[in-house]
């Protein structure tokens, strides 16, 4: 390797590999490399081992119907920081098979299953390629461009039927079944048997039975209706006594077709839908989406808007970590008291969000080029009071009654351990990755917005257990308070938006990936635009979806009561897991 390559290893990769392996992506607005399908595994292994790209952040695919191919996209990063390595594989629509990267990066597991589910691309070598968001037996692969949903009206919004001759129609009445359903031709429900999740239960590892001693393997379904699963999430565990032998998560109970709806929406209309992804931290989701589209559009955000954005993002982080701590203690059995105290702090922050954006939770506050409304001095004073007076005081009292609590410590220390190598291989992100000792924070590794101006620490833990995750979250609240204090000190006067934004945003053709360090991990949006008002492909890199890959390795060998706490420490939100 030359010295130039050590500094910018990804600039001239075509010179390092044989010509038939890869070529640079020359399409306007695109970046990265197009790798040939046969050499994908070798290429990925070389990049991971020789070049140091050990963290596979995102695996997704896009359907290019007119050109006639699928494109599977991979984004890999180095844990020491730096820009992304983007590589893609293009495969014909009639022969959609790609080798699976699960042997190199176990974190690609759920993402490849999702690509199979929604787009129909097979991954050779994946041990358990079942549908993940829809159910086995569902007809069709929904995200393909030629698949139409039952309530299909027109290809793209705005629909012509709404204006100028808009006659209101209840679309349920247009469907012959008065509901959002469609069936294949010739389907006879009386001569058809439902699938009973056979593949799911067959894949569950069971201990080999002892010949003299006949023991019973118990398979328990926890969820989707369960007080501890943080939403509609189901875990299938196989137990021996109280110890877990294997665990398989089942999701999709809240799959609201965000990506398909987003392909019909215009870019601006997607903003309120991003609020509903991780519904506790709506400002963070807006931030990531605004960054992704602004990269494509090339707009600059005024300084005051940048400061306001950072302030809102950090307030969201504080609110989320309080909430997560409260619910972690709920799972431990501290019946509601810590969560009531945390929700009290959250209410005061939500008051600020309500005054600024109009709604407590679904803020819809960011636009391409700035934010919607200015923050008045009255609100700045409220934030000042919170950050200088109330939050540090309440955090000390939370520390006082929780951190050295014997019950918390004995139940959380040493439970659910994830080593650093495991965490990187499983593509974990956020407090989970940092509690295992990997100091990877997108705000430091790949700074966006104006985070490079602020002075804060990246909080890590040493043991990778639940107690460390709790400590990391509490310390991150302190760091967020530190950042907000600097924002309040430095916020300049000025405009909050570049120009008056039109409601039809024209985005030049290209692809972009905008990511932020959300409270739960790296939240990213992958957008492909072809110059039209609607995105051609829109994918959400949801941190908790990928963090759930680490649930099974963490829980094997633990007790059933512990798996509830492990799930609480991962801090999932179903709106993001299922999109």
């Amino acid at each position, binding site marked *: 390797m030359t010295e130039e390559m050590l500094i910018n290893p990804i600039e001239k990769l075509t010179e390092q590999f044989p010509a038939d392996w890869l070529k640079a992506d020359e399409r306007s607005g695109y970046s990265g490399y197009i790798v040939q399908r046969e050499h994908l595994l070798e290429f990925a292994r070389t990049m991971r081992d020789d070049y140091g790209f050990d963290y596979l952040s995102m695996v997704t695919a896009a359907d290019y119907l007119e050109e006639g191919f699928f494109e599977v996209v991979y984004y890999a990063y180095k844990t020491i920081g730096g820009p992304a390595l983007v590589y893609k594989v293009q495969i014909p629509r009639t022969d959609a098979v790609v080798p699976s990267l699960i042997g190199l990066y176990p974190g690609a597991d759920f993402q490849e299953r999702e690509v199979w589910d929604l787009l129909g691309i097979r991954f050779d070598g994946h041990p358990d390629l079942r549908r993940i968001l829809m159910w086995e037996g569902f007809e069709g692969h929904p995200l393909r461009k030629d698949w139409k949903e039952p309530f299909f009206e027109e290809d793209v919004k705005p629909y012509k039927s709404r204006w100028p001759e808009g006659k209101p129609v209840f679309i349920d009445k247009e469907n012959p079944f008065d509901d959002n359903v469609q069936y294949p031709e010739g389907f006879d429900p009386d001569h058809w048997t*439902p699938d009973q999740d056979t593949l799911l239960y067959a894949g569950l590892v069971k201990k080999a039975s002892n010949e003299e001693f006949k023991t019973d393997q118990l398979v328990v379904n926890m969820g989707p209706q369960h007080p501890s699963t943080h939403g509609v999430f189901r875990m299938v565990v196989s137990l021996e006594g109280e110890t877990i032998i294997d665990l398989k998560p089942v999701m999709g109970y809240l799959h609201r077709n965000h990506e398909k709806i987003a392909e019909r929406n215009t870019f601006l209309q997607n903003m309120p839908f991003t609020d509903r992804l991780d519904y506790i931290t709506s400002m963070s989701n807006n931030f990531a989406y605004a960054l992704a589209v602004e990269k494509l559009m090339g707009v600059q955000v005024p300084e005051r808007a940048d400061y306001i954005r950072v302030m809102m993002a950090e307030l969201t982080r504080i609110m989320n970590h309080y909430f997560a701590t409260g619910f972690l203690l709920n799972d431990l059995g501290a019946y509601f008291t810590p969560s009531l105290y945390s929700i009290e702090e959250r209410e005061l922050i939500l008051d600020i969000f309500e005054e600024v954006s109009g709604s407590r939770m679904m803020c819809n506050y960011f636009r391409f080029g700035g934010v919607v409304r200015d923050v008045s001095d009255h609100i700045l004073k409220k934030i000042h009071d919170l950050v200088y007076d109330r939050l540090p005081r309440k955090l000390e009292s939370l520390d006082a009654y929780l951190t050295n609590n014997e019950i918390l410590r004995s139940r959380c220390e040493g439970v659910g351990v994830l080593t650093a190598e495991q965490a990187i291989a499983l593509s974990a992100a956020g407090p989970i990755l940092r509690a295992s000792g990997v100091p990877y924070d997108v705000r430091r590794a790949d700074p966006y917005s104006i985070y490079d101006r602020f002075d804060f620490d990246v909080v890590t833990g040493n043991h990778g257990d639940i107690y460390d995750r709790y400590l990391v979250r509490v310390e991150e609240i302190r760091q967020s308070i530190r950042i907000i204090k600097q924002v309040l000190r430095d916020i300049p006067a000025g405009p909050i938006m570049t120009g008056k934004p039109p409601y039809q945003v024209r985005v030049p053709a290209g692809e972009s990936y905008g990511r932020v360090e959300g409270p739960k991990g790296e939240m990213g949006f992958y957008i492909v635009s072809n110059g039209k008002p609607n995105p051609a492909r829109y994918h959400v890199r949801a941190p908790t979806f990928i963090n759930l890959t680490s649930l099974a390795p963490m829980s094997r060998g633990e007790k059933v009561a512990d798996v509830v706490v492990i799930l609480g420490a991962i801090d999932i939100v179903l709106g993001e897991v299922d999109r």
Partner: protein
Amino acid sequence: MVFPCIPPNSKRCIMSPEGLTKPEYQVPDELQSQVSLTTLDRIYNWSRLNSVWPMMFGLACCAIEMIATAASRYDLARFGMEVMRPSPRQSDVMLVSGTVTKKMIPQIVRLYNQMPEPKYVIAMGACASSGGPFKGGYNVVAGVDKYIPVDVYIPGCPPTPQALLHGLITLQKKIEGESLKTVSWYQKGPSVPIPVPVLGPDLIDVRKTALIREKSKPAPETEAQEPSAGDVTDKPADGEIAAA
């Protein structure tokens, strides 16, 4: 004795013995706060509506607002509803809060069947009422009332905790108006559980199997062709959705 924290002129449903008395009966002044003359209906409803136990059933974003309503700022315990049981066998009202998806609806119907009567359902938010902003999605059921009967609808996305409390007060008013002669759980005959839908190529409502079979029959001129099995799903020929 009224604690200082409850403001005077409370507009709550009925809380004091004076409120329980039926208006047309006159009670002598000296017995006002000790005796009330009421009907069986009124006292039956009064005791039920002041202790409606919700089922802890949060699906999506509206669940967070439900949790915030149960928390200290908008306390549900003032209405007798702080006991949020996750088990359907011990709850009175099912607060469907969040988008109802096809994968989840068999579970919702099963849970509804497991609730003992008298039971109520509140559809909280736009998504539970009608599919909401996600109505066009392929995995979303257009309103939970396609499968279970709903008593109160609360629009909003999400409805603020105060709106949810208003919806619960509406439910309390509805319960107040019920009469022992007409309630469904005291009629003759057992109550019929709702059949649980099945997940097939798409969600199958078992009450509509005849309709499904009829509408899915291939059109006569294309009978010679194989029905398409695989990725591209065509809508049945007579099921075209026309834009208005």
